[in-house]
């Protein structure tokens, strides 16, 4: 026999004072009375013999010792061999992902029903069985490690909050399995609706029991909201919206679009059953801020009825072109709405540190510490040595995945002449000839990166191609860290990254849409991150030491959306009968030995009190 709380056996020491009191008590109290004549008359009817009195005392001692033994043994929580054999460790895994916020018929959400189911398991599982509680989102983690203390487990259950993050059930199950060193007696119970990234790959097993939660429900979700500024006209805001109907019937809904809470568009749409709708809309605005898309009557899951994105405001870029004269270059920058262009033959003495300097042909030996673009260089500088001419270069390779080459195709461009470059510093070649000569390269340096295009624009048809303004727009966006694509919303369940605000060195926190604060980590000199993000909406980054509730400065805004169709598709809920678990196992009486011992102690105490009241016991 084992004891789960062997230290309680120290309680047997209490037998010493009990025996001591017994020895003291058997010596009768002496009481002087005025006369014995009435007492003797009273005793005549029932007089206890001396031997019975002694036996009565002994019996009383035995009852008290027995009572103590029962209480001490109950406190030590004995585990009988057959009980030990049947004892199990249970990991209750609750899916608290976005789909579990689906409201079923009635008012309760799937998570509330899962919590109720788990509570039933807690009350029915044998009391000696250890139980741990885990959740799946925003990442699988343990909310209560193995314990037999039911109030702690119930408290942990109550604390589980719904999230808007997707679930990874297999990772959660693997984490649960890793909690125990004895897999034979370990069982995992998964309370989930099966709407998860890997829901289709989860199957019941000997050690994995599934409690399916919920039934198939209709839902309509905004699955994408992507704004960006037009490459051709940055004042144009292009917005990609995608809506999916995860319903068994066609739906007619309205999509509303707001910018900074001002409506900018309302679109009534019709969606076929399990169909989707996608559109790109353009809006003319310099304004930046929070773009919100929402649908009415979005179905059972509210988390995907709205989507957010942060749109950068249009900022004027100062570009200084140093050239002896090139109409193409002047016109391409003049055509950009967000560019303020100045042209000179030589580099001015004073130039703003943020301004982009464009050199055409002639470059100084030491380039200025500004973001710089060099077109067709004609002399050496500190970054490269100029080689001979390359005739009829053909673009063989281009890094189309690089942001600088986004939407830029150079394979059909004629470039009769270019200059051979040998870089004195590491450079990223974005486009090169068959011989490997760099045509377009990036040199990263502190103060401002340098982009070099070695082609002769006067001889090439590149300025006549649409690739050229896109190439220059990409170059300006790269050099000024202003992407035309805007800030893509962070999918829930992932880390949110953002550019570290200039001039801020203190600790930052991210404040969720509901006001929760999350610590921000600086992952690079110019990047910060926090997460995993578990709420949809707009998170704001602020200084940690600013008082809560005070009017605080928002250093960055990050939109978070539910970007997981398998969470939005609450039609695909587990309804297969094979998922049904056999329910919590029951043991004889359903109670542990300590409970019966405590009950026996209570009964014995009651009997003793009854007998004591009638003076049958001392």
């Amino acid at each position, binding site marked *: 026999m084992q004891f789960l709380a062997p230290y309680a056996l120290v309680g047997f020491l209490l037998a010493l004072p009990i025996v001591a009191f017994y020895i003291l008590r058997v010596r009768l109290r002496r009481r002087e*009375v*005025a*006369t014995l004549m*009435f007492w003797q*008359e*009273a005793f005549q009817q029932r007089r206890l013999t001396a031997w019975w009195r002694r036996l009565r005392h002994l019996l009383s001692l035995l009852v008290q010792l027995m009572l103590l033994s029962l209480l001490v043994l109950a406190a030590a929580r004995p585990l009988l061999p057959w009980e030990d054999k049947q004892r199990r460790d249970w990991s209750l895994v609750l899916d608290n992902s976005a789909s579990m916020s689906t409201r079923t018929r009635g008012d309760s959400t799937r998570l509330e029903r899962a919590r109720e189911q788990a509570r039933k398991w807690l009350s029915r599982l044998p009391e000696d069985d250890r139980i741990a509680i885990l959740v799946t989102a925003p990442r699988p983690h343990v909310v209560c490690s193995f314990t037999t203390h039911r109030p702690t487990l119930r408290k942990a259950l109550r604390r589980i909050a719904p999230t808007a993050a997707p679930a990874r059930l297999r990772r959660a199950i693997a984490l649960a399995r890793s909690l125990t060193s004895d897999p034979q007696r370990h069982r995992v119970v998964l309370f989930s609706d099966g709407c998860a990234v890997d829901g289709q790959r989860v199957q019941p097993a000997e050690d994995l029991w599934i409690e399916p939660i919920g039934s198939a429900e209709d839902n309509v979700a905004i699955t994408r909201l992507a704004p960006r500024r037009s490459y051709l006209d940055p004042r144009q805001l292009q917005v990609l919206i995608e809506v999916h109907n995860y319903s068994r019937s066609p739906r007619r809904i309205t999509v509303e679009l707001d910018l900074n809470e001002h409506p900018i568009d309302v679109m009534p749409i019709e969606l076929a059953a399990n169909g989707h709708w996608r559109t790109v809309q353009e809006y003319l605005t310099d304004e930046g801020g929070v773009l919100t898309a929402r649908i009415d009557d979005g179905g059972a899951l509210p988390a995907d009825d709205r989507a957010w994105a942060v749109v950068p405001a249009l900022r004027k870029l100062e570009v200084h072109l140093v050239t002896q004269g090139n109409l193409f270059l002047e016109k391409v920058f003049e055509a950009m709405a967000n560019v303020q262009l100045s042209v000179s033959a030589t580099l001015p003495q004073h130039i703003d540190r943020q301004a982009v300097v464009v050199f055409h042909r002639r470059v100084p030996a030491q380039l200025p510490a500004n973001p710089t673009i060099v077109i067709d260089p004609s002399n050496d500088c500190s970054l490269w040595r100029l080689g001979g001419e390359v005739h009829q270069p053909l673009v063989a390779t281009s890094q189309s995945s690089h942001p600088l080459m986004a939407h830029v195709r150079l394979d059909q461009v004629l470039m009769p002449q270019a200059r051979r470059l040998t870089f004195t510093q590491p450079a990223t070649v974005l486009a090169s000839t068959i011989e490997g000569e760099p045509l377009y390269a990036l040199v990263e340096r502190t103060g401002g990166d340098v982009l070099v295009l070695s082609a002769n624009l006067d001889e090439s048809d590149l300025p006549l191609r649409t690739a050229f303004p896109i190439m220059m727009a990409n170059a300006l966006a790269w050099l000024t860290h202003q992407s035309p694509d805007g800030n893509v919303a962070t999918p829930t369940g992932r880390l949110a990254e953002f550019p570290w605000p200039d001039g801020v060195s203190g600790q930052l926190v991210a404040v969720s849409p509901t006001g929760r604060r999350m610590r921000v980590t600086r992952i690079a000199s110019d990047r910060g991150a926090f997460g995993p993000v578990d709420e949809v909406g707009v998170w704001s980054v602020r200084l940690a030491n600013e008082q809560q509730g005070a009017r605080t400065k928002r250093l960055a805004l990050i939109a978070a959306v539910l970007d997981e169709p398998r969470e939005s598709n609450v039609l695909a809920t587990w309804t297969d009968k094979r998922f049904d678990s056999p329910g919590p196992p029951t043991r004889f009486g359903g109670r542990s030995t300590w409970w019966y011992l405590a009950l026996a102690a209570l009964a014995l105490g009651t009997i003793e009190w009854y007998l004591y009241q009638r003076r049958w016991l*001392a």
Partner: protein
Amino acid sequence: MPEPNLLDQEFLRKLEYLSLVSRRVFRGQLLAQRRTRQLGAGIEFADHREYAPGDDYRYLDWHIYARHEELLLKRFHEEEDLHVYILLDVSRSMVLENERKLWFAKQLAAALAYIALAEMDRVAIMAFAAEPVAEYPLTRGKGKVLSMLRFLQELAPARSATDLRRACGALVHRRAKTGVVLLISDFYDPAGFAPAVDLLRYHRHEPHLIQVYERAEAEPSFVGDVELVDCESRARDQATIDEAVLRRYREAFRRYQEQMRAYCREHGLACTQTPADVPFDRLLLEMMRRAGTVE
């Protein structure tokens, strides 16, 4: 409890008050102011009896002979001083836990003696336990009040048991003149009260029983296993006391008191039973009132 003093002014004022009340309201009905049953050559007519040869012709009722031709002799009360004997129990049981019971008994004795002396009766006090332990001789006149009170004040409790019969025997064997015997005691005598009172009655005394007890003796409340020790005989008894035993004890106590009252009713005696925590003057007034209504 304050130190008892029978000589302080307050106590004496109470005694005087009681004496006045006794004289004005209950005249001749409490103690010594009653006539004795002695028939003789008094002046107050008592009754008639038939003439017997040798009787004094002077007491023949000639008026009756003239009317009915019957010879009847007139009888008269003979006036005689009343003797009041106060037997005061000072045994160990009177001072078991404190001296309240004895102090109360002393106050009663003092008050009754005061009233008797004020009425010019003769008063004697005998303190007893297993046997007489102290005596105040037969005295007459109010001038002896202070010495009587001093005697009571200085009376110490005895360590011995109660023996009522021996105390009463000591009184009657001295061939004392008959009178009222006030027996103040708790009456915790294993031999009972009847033999002692019978003895007094046989010797033509008029006993008046005054039982003084503590409420805790009438209704004890302790329970559990105890060794009971009789404070007088030192006899021991080990027992377990529960509610049932207490109930039977109370019944036995009440039965004993009822026996005393029944005995006194049967023999036309006065009986007073009182706990020791009531004011003694109130008890005496009650006694006077009762005596008035009974008589």
